[in-house]
């Protein structure tokens, strides 16, 4: 912290008054400490303490109306023995990976277009705001909107039937893994677009010009310049989408209609049945797996190098 505060202090301190420099440095240091104390307290109160509580409760013995404060490993053993939980965990990871990859494949080009193809800044941001527009409505509304779209008597099925493409409604369009993935991709696309857009926007056009002048083709520019320079944005976008998808339960419940599951939904079910220790055990496993995924993303994304 002191190393990060010293440039500030030096910049503020006048060379003509060296005596006050140390005092200023001290003042700047405590200002930084104060500034950092708030987010630290925030993290402690709303992240660290809850996670610890969840971890502790996951070792308690469940009862009909809550739990007894008696240590047990039973909750974890039940999860480990349950094929359904293992399968659900696998499905959750698979859905998160699919969502992350597809949002990248779609989102990169949206960001590319916004950042590099659209010429002036004003139009860029106008289009970016338009891309944001669906996100002015609530997350749940956007999820629910898929039901009249993809239902048995929904828009898509009616269109397919009327065009003579299908002879009966396609059931897999709603209440299926397919439907959940489509909805999640739509819901999280922007979390991928935004960081990539900002990464690409930060690229000095002179670099691209120089590359072109040196005879680099479109593909070479993409591979050698754009992708490496956009990497921090891509990794941050991937972390957003992966973490959100791993914790997903509302979309799975609404669009999955009970036909598909996620660990998040399982946790929610345990909570509604007042089986908190089992919910806490499943939550601890989910947090562990999600953090592992994020660590992998940061390590192989070498995000710090690009910043």
């Amino acid at each position, binding site marked *: 912290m002191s190393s990060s505060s010293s440039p500030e202090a030096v910049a503020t301190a006048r060379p003509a008054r060296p005596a006050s420099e140390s005092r200023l440095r001290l003042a700047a240091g405590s200002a930084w400490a104060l500034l950092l104390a708030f987010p630290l307290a925030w993290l402690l109160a709303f992240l660290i303490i809850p996670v610890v509580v969840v971890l502790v409760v996951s070792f308690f013995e469940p009862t009909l*109306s809550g739990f007894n404060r008696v240590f047990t490993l039973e909750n974890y053993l*039940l999860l480990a023995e349950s094929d359904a*939980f293992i399968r659900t965990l696998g499905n959750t990871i698979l859905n998160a990976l699919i969502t992350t990859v597809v949002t990248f494949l779609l989102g990169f080009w949206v960001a590319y277009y916004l950042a590099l193809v659209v010429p002036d800044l004003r139009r860029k941001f106008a289009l970016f705001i338009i891309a944001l527009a669906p996100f002015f409505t609530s997350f749940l509304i956007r999820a629910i909107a898929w039901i009249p779209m993809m*239902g048995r008597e929904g828009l898509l099925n009616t269109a397919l039937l009327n065009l003579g493409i299908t002879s009966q409604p396609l059931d897999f369009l709603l209440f299926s893994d397919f439907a959940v993935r489509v909805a999640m991709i739509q819901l999280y696309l922007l979390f991928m677009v935004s960081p990539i857009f900002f990464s690409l926007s930060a690229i000095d056009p002179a670099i691209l010009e120089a590359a072109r002048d040196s005879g680099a083709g479109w593909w070479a520019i993409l591979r050698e310049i754009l992708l490496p320079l956009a990497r921090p944005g891509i990794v941050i976008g991937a972390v957003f989408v992966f973490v959100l998808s791993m914790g997903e339960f509302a979309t799975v419940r609404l669009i999955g209609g009970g*036909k598909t599951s996620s660990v998040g939904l399982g946790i929610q079910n345990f909570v509604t049945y007042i089986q908190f220790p089992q919910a806490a055990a499943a939550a601890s496993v989910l947090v562990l797996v999600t953090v592992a995924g994020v660590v992998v993303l940061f390590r192989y994304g070498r995000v710090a190098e690009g910043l």
Partner: protein
Amino acid sequence: MSTNTSSDKSSNEIHVEPEQTAVTRRDFIKGSAALGAAAVGAHAGTTALGASPLVGAGAKRSAFPAPAFLQGTTLRVVGTGVTLLDPIKAQAEQDLGITLQYDVKDGLTAQQIAVTQPQSWDVYDQWFNSVKIVWGAGVAQPVDVTRLPEWENLSPLTKVGKINDEAKVGAGDAPVRLLYVQPDGSLGSDPTEQVSMLPLTFNVDAFGYQSDVVGSDDARSWAIFYDPDYRGRVGLYNDPATGLMDLALGAEAAGLATFADIGNMTRDEIDAILNLLIEQKQAGQFRAFWNSFDESVNLMASGEVVVESMWSPAVTALRTRGVPVVYASPQEGYRGWHGGIMINEQASGATLDAVYEYIDWWMNGWAGALVARQGYYFSIPENAREHLSEAEWDYWYGGQPAAEDMLAPDGGVVAEQGEVRDGGSYETRMSNIAVWNSVMDEHQYLVSKWNEFLSA
């Protein structure tokens, strides 16, 4: 405020309300400032929010005296949309001079709030299948029936267990088995003067079906849930204490499973039925699961399902929308449920007095008549009758053809002149309860198996 004994309520309100608002807002600010007084803050805050009661302009007064000493008391009621209805709230507020704050949730969420946030409610208006869990959590106090003059008129259905000698009691958590607080604090059927939940609204549940798709022969039995003709068009209720009962009755009827006691299954029986369900689910038999009343209506209205485990007001809602849905009367018998009111352990003083007044108001039947128009029965049928027209009584309770169009509380037509209620009269329907909504001894085991079923 307490000295104001004027019988003219409207002038009363004009004088009282602004003062009331000011005081409670100040309390609210003070309350929120003190971290330790979170509960006080919440309480005062709700009073401030609800301080201008919009008593329905057209609401008629029921013949019920408003006790002046209750003026300004706020009751926080958590429960479900089955009984927490706006007309009931408006009428009770007008009759009692109290402020009611209704927190309307689905059944499982209401139960979860009752157990985990006991500081947030005074009255728990829910169903007997949550009594074991809520009473077990120690957040409720017994209801003293000696404070309730109408207690002696309460139906034998809950006091004894059946409406007459010929009727079945029904397996599982029949209300009588959980009604009386025994001297050791446990719940049982031996009469005492203290009850866990004061029984009010009840009905029998079955399934609904679209009559233009489903043959009425198929709809005679719960076995329809496993009928391959309706593969992929079946909707289920996501609750192990109730939805499972429908499926168990169906499995028994279809010859797919047997139970020694369907209302209290053993682990082996739970394994057997859940394995069957997982098998059926993976074969695509079930289209969707619902959690809230609205979802059950939407699933049927959007054509996603044609057979669905559902509640009778959902059928009412669909019919007023023009969806041809019929509520089945399965030959194996119904699944019964009984609602009622529990009192918070912490309630005391004026709040507790208001709770008893509120319960007494309920028992007087105005609300019972209102829920009758949704297809529910009331634990003191004679008191509901006083607030129903003769035609309404004959249709809803008597099982007779409607002498005129039957209107829902919102004014929509539920049944046209000449229609007969499915399943017949009150006596016929309530004598044929196969099983009650139940929390079994192996409930926790069932919950984790049910979760596997949902994930399968």
